[in-house]
């Protein structure tokens, strides 16, 4: 008996038992809850649950690190500090997400009905009628077409440019492209819209030009740098050993890129593309300038004004009639739709990544 404890001790002597962090966490929260309870009772103010959790977590971090320092030594203590900080960071980041998703779902659910997906806003006033309460079909179609077109243009261009930068580019040109792609991330979205408008007004000699394709071009300007930047980063991470192995087998360079380099980094690239789509699908200002505002359906990217979902959200929020509520409900429902669309895209991207990427250990 004594012998075994001796052996166990030698391995775990400098270690806190597993239950200690959890006990400390519960303890700190409890202490803060009591302190705030007394404060609230004393001043008659509201009970501040966020402060309890936040300050409790801080107290926990301090306690844990001190205990660990005393029992386990400084290296272990630092490790525990970082672990708790990392976990705290995660919790902090989740708070706004939960709040945001909760708000959008609760407020958006009220008008998340069939009519919303089968009707446009043509001839709809206020809450509309029983049969035609108004919907966002025109905006959904517009967003899908415009963003789809922008993706269709910017993904090949962006990916090819990234390939050039990583696999081929040497010297001044490649450095210039890298640099100016960075600069491009700084184009304010509204400037992209103004530019697309000026360009097409000039090309078609029509000072009032508004069409979906122009919106797609404006979004492409915003999307390309994100695609290049993230793809470049991912391609760079592909180990040179893989390329060299492929070359050694006599595989041409372009096939090496297509069959080895891209599949290896496809997960990262699709993540980057999804992020880029998410970045532009919510753009409002450039679309207002070049794609225009309409409450009627339009399937033709190349002629006539085209509505988009973010614009729909914004105008429903900003320009309601006397009876504000139905407009706000529609705005939130459209916001929910927009998020669902991007989620769906995300899912598809993950599927694509899983199909094409080589099966790795992790």
């Amino acid at each position, binding site marked *: 008996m004594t012998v075994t404890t001796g052996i166990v001790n030698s391995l775990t002597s400098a270690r806190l038992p597993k239950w200690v962090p959890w006990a400390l966490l519960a303890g700190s929260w409890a202490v803060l809850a009591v302190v705030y309870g007394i404060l609230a009772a004393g001043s008659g103010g509201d009970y501040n649950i966020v402060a309890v959790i936040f300050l409790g977590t801080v107290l926990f971090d301090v306690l844990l690190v001190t205990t660990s320092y005393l029992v386990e030594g400084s290296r272990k203590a630092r490790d525990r500090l970082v672990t708790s900080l990392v976990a705290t960071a995660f919790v902090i980041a989740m708070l706004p997400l939960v709040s945001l998703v909760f708000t959008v779902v609760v407020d958006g659910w009220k008008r998340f009905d069939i009519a919303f997906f089968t009707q446009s806003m043509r001839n709809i*006033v206020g809450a509309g009628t029983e049969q035609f309460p108004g919907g966002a079909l025109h905006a959904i179609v517009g967003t899908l077409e415009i963003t789809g077109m922008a993706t269709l243009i910017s993904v090949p261009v962006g990916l090819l440019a990234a390939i050039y930068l990583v696999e081929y580019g040497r010297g001044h040109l490649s450095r210039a492209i890298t640099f100016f792609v960075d600069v491009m991330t700084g184009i304010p979205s509204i400037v992209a819209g103004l530019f697309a408008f000026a360009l097409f007004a000039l090309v078609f000699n029509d000072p009032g030009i508004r069409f979906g394709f122009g919106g797609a071009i404006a979004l492409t300007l915003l999307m390309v740098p994100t695609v290049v930047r993230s793809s470049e980063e991912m391609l760079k991470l592909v180990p040179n050993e893989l390329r060299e192995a492929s070359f050694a087998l006599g595989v041409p360079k372009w096939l090496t890129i297509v069959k080895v380099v891209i599949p290896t980094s496809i997960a990262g690239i699709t993540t980057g593309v999804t992020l880029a789509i998410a970045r532009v699908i919510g753009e409002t200002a450039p679309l207002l300038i070049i794609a225009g505002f309409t409450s009627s359906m339009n399937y033709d990217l190349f002629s006539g004004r085209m509505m988009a979902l973010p614009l729909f959200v914004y105008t429903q929020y*900003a320009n309601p009639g006397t009876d504000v509520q139905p407009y706000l409900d529609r705005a939130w429902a459209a916001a929910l739709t927009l998020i669902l669309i991007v989620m769906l895209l995300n899912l598809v991207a993950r599927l694509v990544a899983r*199909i094409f990427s080589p099966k790795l250990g992790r």
Partner: protein
Amino acid sequence: MNSLRVSRLAALAVVGVVLLSSCAANEMQDGGGAESLSGELNGSGASSQGSASDVWIAAFQTANPRVTINYSPDGSGAGRKAFISGGVAYAGSDSSLSSEELAGDFAACIPGTKAIDIPVYISPIALIFNIEGVAALKLDPAAIAGIFSGTITMWSDPAITALNPDAELPHAPITAVHRSDDSGTTKNFTDYLARTAPEVWDAPAADTFPYTGGEAAQGTSGVVGAVTNGHNTIGYADASRAGGLGVASLKVGDSYVDYSAAAAAQVVTGSPLVDGRSANDIAIALDRTTTDPTHYPLVLVSYLIVCQEYANPETGALVKAYAKYVASPAGQAEAAKSAGAAPLSAELSAKVATVIESIR
């Protein structure tokens, strides 16, 4: 396995496309007389008349199903610019065309002919407030100017309590909310203060709010939201959006006037026209300093800017028909019901109708 998954995905995509490409249910209504108009009309301009425009367009399109009218609430400046360059067939604007703009050419009109302003949308601007325990507030121009320019900072300031002997005003700081975006509402509000309280309000009328104090919010929705969610707040916004908030009454002459559609329409009717315009141009120089207690001088007038003679006669016919409906008693009543506008008075309405008849 993979190809199966891909084909399933493709099938899903096809179904989705088919679903989305079916027409919007509310756009499949047929009808309309044989003589009805057809075509597409694009307008752009002030967001103030945006919700009224929605109503007008809906009614007009219902009567003429083969017509599509798009009005984008881009803002008055953008609307006028687009109209002058011929980008849109008509503009909505919170201020009439300036003399410089009139001196130039209008691309949509027959060369040499000019554009005209037609007042179609009158909206009283309300001073909305949210003060705990206070239901009614009376203010004179000097006090309003003091509050918004930052010289009066407490609700218990004697300048305010003297006007409101009955109200129990708290000893709390004032949060005055103004528009952060340039807007016709700000221009009308500052014009009112610059004319009625020039000794306090030393800035000229402008689209941009001239002082850096106070809280700024985007658009009417933003101002209403800030006033509603904040404490001891006051702001200015289109009266149609005042909702359940308290609205201050204005001192006009020696009495206090609550905002009302009738009083707002009255001041517009009683105001002179801008000098030196063509006979058909109804640009109104609002009489802010009126002392008539049936007038509510803090109003916004929004115009329809159209060509006197359109280069394209079909566009001219469409614009004319649409403007006719907008200015008609039916159109004005619809806007009053759904957008809280003040209908044009009978006198002004008759004048507008004759001008619209002259559009070609």
